């Protein structure tokens, strides 16, 4: 059974973190953390709510990448579906409701 598993993993080129040198993993995490901090600043400094919804979508995507770099695929899935899709939709619908009355 383990022989078949090893063969499948070679065929699919599955790479576990054991085969990535730790310095590379550290560098990846540092880069993504810096990007997340920058994206959070960008979201807050975007003052118009319609543009902020798009910035929130990009921030959700970067957060999902960071969760993936921290070995949490479940949280990545949740953050992708919620932060990059559901929340901007809710924001846009609220803004449509508010804007039409003006």
């Amino acid at each position: 059974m383990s022989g078949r598993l090893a063969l499948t993993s070679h065929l699919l080129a599955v790479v576990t973190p054991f085969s990535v040198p730790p310095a590379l993993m550290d560098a990846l995490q540092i880069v993504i953390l810096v990007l997340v901090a920058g994206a959070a600043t960008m979201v807050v400094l975007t003052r118009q709510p319609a543009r902020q919804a798009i910035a929130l979508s990009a921030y959700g995507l970067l957060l999902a990448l960071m969760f993936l770099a921290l070995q949490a695929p479940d949280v990545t899935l949740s953050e992708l579906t919620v932060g990059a899709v559901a929340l901007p939709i809710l924001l846009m619908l609220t803004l449509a409701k508010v804007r039409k009355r003006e």
Partner: protein
Amino acid sequence: MTAVQRRWLFFAGMAILAGFYLWGLSGLPGFGNYPGPYGFVINRIAVAQTNATGVVSAVNFEYRGFDTVGEEFILFTAATGVATVLRQLRNERNEGQAGDEALGPGSAETTDAVRLATLVFVGPTVLFGWYLGSHAQTSPSGGFQGGVVLATAFVLIYLAGEFLVFRRISPVNLVDAVGAVGAGGFAVVGITAVALGLPYLTNFLGLGTVPGAVSSSGTIALISFFVGIEVAAAFVLIVGELLEQTLLVRRGAA
């Protein structure tokens, strides 16, 4: 107090808070040097005890199931709150036929490219949502993610410009009922364990033979299914209420 004064007051307060926060966080054992026993203990015994290879879902629905009941009811209450607040607003106007307005001159025409792109993805999204909801014990999936992906399939139909179809396939009473079944189903699974003489939310179904198979791990798969339909119903309810608001406003302004 002017805006500039408020800003400087905030900076002063934030500097103090950040100082204390960093002082507290630097007392942790450092990033990557996880010392605590619980993570290692659960990783060793979870597969043997519950026959679930997805340890995070096993923690969510089995070891920490009581907290998840609470979180699911937060979700349920929030969706009910949205429905209550926005339906109260809607009853102030006459019960408009928002469906007629969707065909009227106020509605936007979607191009064929948008319609094709969104409608092609509705089927795979529903399939993906069911896959995620039913494989909680195997791989990185679970009721929460699967439910949100299922709700996204409904929203795709609205984005294709087919608001009438969206309203017809998600009537408010049905969505309410499905959400209630999901939330209640989770609690009922726990109460069934009590009725059998075991503590609340014990895993009383058979554990199956192959670890990580879809039919294994007893109540984890069942609870994940209930959570999935509840989360999907909650999000469809929220989006439906906000859409009704938008269309009623458009009709009132026209």
